[in-house]
């Protein structure tokens, strides 16, 4: 496509609306309109210029702000629908059938529909992900479409503009003043005082400030893209670790997802507010009941020795002691370990004694460690108790055999063989909480003495390599929005005409009130013609619209 040559001699790229240098309108439309569209300085944007091929069409689609807004609204609406009922994530069920049943049971027909339409997992659904993808594409294309031509034309703009350019500005003035030279000089002085960048060329003045704010939207969009890119990265394997580990008090385990590291739970603590110590909150404690003050796991971190074989836990090296609380995760080597959950009072061990039933004579006590039970317990006078079977989570008898629900000692049951000198072949006994079963009537019994419990802490292990990228995206976004919102790009043109005539025009990308306030100051000092804001009376033509007061 050929270049457009302006009357001023400058060659503009095809599609230019206003000459990059002098501002003369280049299209019929621009020549005829009363006010020109200054948004992108009338520069040649690809989307406004090429409209034929498929690539052009896709480009134009995504570069349209209208389309962009529609995508934003679509994300907004789908997000909102996702909050009508709890998402799958918050539903206490794991299998699809159970999840479906949950929605049906709690929300009836609406719940069934919600499930069937896939809204119960909105934020992982393919259409939501596609929408986000379109949002990203749109941001990139729309920005590239605009930023390059905008940059070029702002760079090439000349101080002296053609009057047809000035005449079509929203703020405009022309008129004869007492002494145009003195007004011109004084205006320069005042504008500099107001921190404008002033350039002068052949009786023409351009005062400009805050041009960098024009880059704000592009900076913030870059931030958004970096953020979205980081989110995309997280879906790749290896970029982030998310594991759960349950640690009993006193227990040491390898940290899942962090090879070579081990964590020991020394103590798990729950504290609640008390009226004595926290007197100010007495009323609230009375009203609500218990309020938790602290969840804390006191842990010790170990690691494999340098150069040592992995997994040899006897040789672990001490790294540090730490108290993990809800807002203070343990940090090491890029990993974070969070306090997430707990269980109180899991059975740790049970102590029994062996007794002769008739005499109540005791052969002494023995303690069964419920996680690592030993097989044999030697007691006084040569008596031995043998642990034949152990059911940590006893759940009744199936097909004549006792069964266990899980390996967690919630409801331990035992089959003991009691051997004494009097009964060397032994007597068998089934012992569970509050029950003892014997196949034959025994002379001896194992009697429960006491139990020891301990707490378990639920920790989450995270490592997220994208975190810094996310943060970077956020920071760039913030810089960009601040740049575009708290500064404005203001320009004032003043040109000398014949005799003592002066022409003045002003433009800002936003916040016209401040521009006008500044212009008023300049005018007061320098005696300039009164400007007019050609959009001022857009809304108010008072009197016409029914004021009944």
């Amino acid at each position, binding site marked *: 496509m050929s270049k457009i040559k302006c009357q001023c001699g400058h060659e503009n790229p095809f599609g230019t609306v206003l000459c990059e240098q002098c501002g003369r309108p280049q299209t019929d439309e621009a020549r005829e309109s009363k006010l020109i569209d200054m948004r992108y300085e009338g520069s040649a944007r690809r989307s406004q210029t090429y409209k034929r091929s498929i690539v052009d069409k896709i480009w134009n689609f995504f570069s349209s702000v209208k389309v962009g807004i529609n995508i934003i609204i679509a994300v907004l609406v789908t997000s909102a629908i996702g909050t009508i009922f709890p998402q799958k994530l918050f539903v206490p069920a794991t299998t699809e059938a159970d999840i479906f049943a949950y929605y049906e049971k709690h929300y009836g027909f609406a719940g069934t529909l919600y499930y069937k339409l896939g809204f119960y997992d909105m934020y992982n659904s393919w259409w939501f992900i596609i929408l986000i993808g379109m949002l990203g594409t749109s941001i990139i294309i729309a920005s590239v479409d605009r930023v390059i031509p905008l940059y070029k034309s702002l760079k090439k703009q000349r101080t002296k503009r053609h009057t047809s350019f000035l005449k079509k500005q929203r703020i405009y003035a022309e008129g004869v003043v007492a002494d145009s030279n003195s007004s011109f000089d004084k205006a320069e002085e005042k504008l500099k005082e107001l921190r404008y960048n002033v350039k002068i060329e052949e009786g023409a003045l351009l005062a400009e400030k805050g041009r960098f704010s024009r880059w704000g939207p592009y900076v913030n969009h870059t931030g958004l893209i970096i953020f979205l890119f980081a989110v995309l990265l997280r879906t790749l394997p290896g970029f982030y670790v998310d594991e759960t580990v349950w640690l009993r008090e006193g227990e040491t385990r390898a940290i899942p997802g962090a090879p070579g590291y081990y964590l020991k739970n020394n103590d798990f603590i729950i504290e609640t507010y008390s009226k004595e110590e926290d007197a100010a909150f007495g009323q609230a404690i009375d009203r609500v009941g218990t309020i938790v003050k*602290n969840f804390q796991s006191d842990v010790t971190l170990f690691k494999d020795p340098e150069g040592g074989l992995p997994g040899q836990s006897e040789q672990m090296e001490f790294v540090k002691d730490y108290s993990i609380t*809800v*807002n203070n995760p343990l940090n090491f080597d890029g990993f974070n370990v*969070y306090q*997430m959950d707990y269980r109180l009072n899991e059975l740790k061990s049970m102590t029994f004694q062996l007794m002769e039933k008739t005499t109540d004579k005791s052969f002494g006590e023995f303690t069964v460690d419920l996680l690592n039970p030993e097989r044999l317990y030697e007691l006084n006078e040569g008596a031995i108790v043998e642990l034949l079977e152990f059911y940590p989570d006893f759940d009744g008898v199936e097909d004549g055999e006792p069964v266990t629900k899980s390996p967690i000692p919630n409801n331990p049951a035992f089959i003991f063989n009691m051997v004494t000198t009097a009964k060397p072949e032994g007597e068998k006994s089934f012992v569970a909480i509050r029950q003892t079963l014997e196949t034959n009537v025994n002379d001896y019994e194992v009697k429960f003495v006491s139990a020891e419990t301990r707490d378990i802490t639920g920790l989450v292990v995270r490592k997220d390599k994208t*975190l810094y990228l996310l943060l970077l995206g956020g920071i760039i976004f913030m810089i960009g929005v601040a740049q575009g919102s708290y500064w404005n790009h203001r320009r004032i043109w003043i040109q000398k005409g014949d005799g003592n005539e002066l022409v003045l025009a002003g433009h800002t990308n936003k916040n016209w*009130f401040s521009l006008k306030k500044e212009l008023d100051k300049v005018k007061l000092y320098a005696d300039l013609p009164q400007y007019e804001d050609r959009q001022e009376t857009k*809304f*108010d033509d008072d009197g016409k619209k029914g004021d*009944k007061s």
Partner: protein
Amino acid sequence: MQLASLSGNLLYFSFVAYLVATLFFGGAVKGAKTQESYKNNRWRKIAISITIIGFITHLGYFITRWIASAHAPVSNMFEFITAFAMMVVGAFILLFFLYRTPSLGLFALPLAVVMIGYASMFPRELTPLIPALQTHWLTIHVITAAMGEAILAISAVAGLVFLLKNIDLTKRSKQRFWLESVMFTLILVVGFILSSSTFAIMGYEAKFTYINKNEQTAQIVYNYPPLFGMNEYESLTPDKMTPLAEMPPIVNAKTLTTFVWSVATGIVLYLLLRLILRRPIAALFQPFAKKANSEVMDEIGYRSVLIGFPVFTLGALVFAMIWAHEAWSRFWGWDPKEVWALITWLFYAAYLHLRLSRGWEGEKSAWLAVIGFIIIMFNLIAVNLIIAGLHSYA
């Protein structure tokens, strides 16, 4: 405890100051004959002075309560909404000094008054922080987010003034209907405050046991005559009213009861007003908006979104993510509260982009600003009390 009661008195003082300042702003708007005197009169100076005094005592409330409870007073509904009201006044003062228009004050201050009234319906005692809230990020996140929302709220106030001024209320139209709906909603809030404080003054209490969603027995106290009963409720106070209907376990019948009482009171109030006034409620306020300059209102509406949007982003998204990362190990979890912050953010992003295209200034923008505020309020009230209430069945 003395500090706590001083704090309460300071808040009470601010409440009264805002009411008085509203009257003076009314005088400033009404008394003005021309644009010039509208801009510069004694009433206006007195009005803004009283507003600033009220704001300072409000700040005093905030600081003394902070000292008394040893954490930033933004940890429950009462504290958050009163802090939000304070920031709305702060944002108003900021925009007042940029544009010096009393019409804005005439509508912004009553908003703050209603908010303080609304907040006072929630438990007001000092509450300790649960572990997840014990971090400076809570303070930083909530205060910044509330500041952003308050500045955005001013945009809605400017929008409302614009609409009141520019919508013809003598003819039937969609605009008139929706404007009246906004007024109606405000009256519903007043209905809630009225009904709730009436029963509170009467000391009404009805106690029940019921079976909750997890099939456990729980207790609940109603402060309104129970229209709806909880799942398998049994009354512990048989002399009080028996519920008219029993609700399934997923519905919080107490919230529903409060809601229905408030709406009913609001409707009665609205109908009474209509009967007395014999015209739309909006028409009552219209004369106060008539002196406003639509250009200025449009500009304030846009400017406050421009100022508020970055602050909101920083507080409600960036700081929120940092805190969520510290406390819950993930920066984002699609929790309804988070999603609604995102929705608010997307909405204002759409607003800013719409302002880039021609034809969206003026009335359309004003409507958007009002809708934006409704979204903010929805997140504050409905998400906390209804949606989140479904999960955490308290």
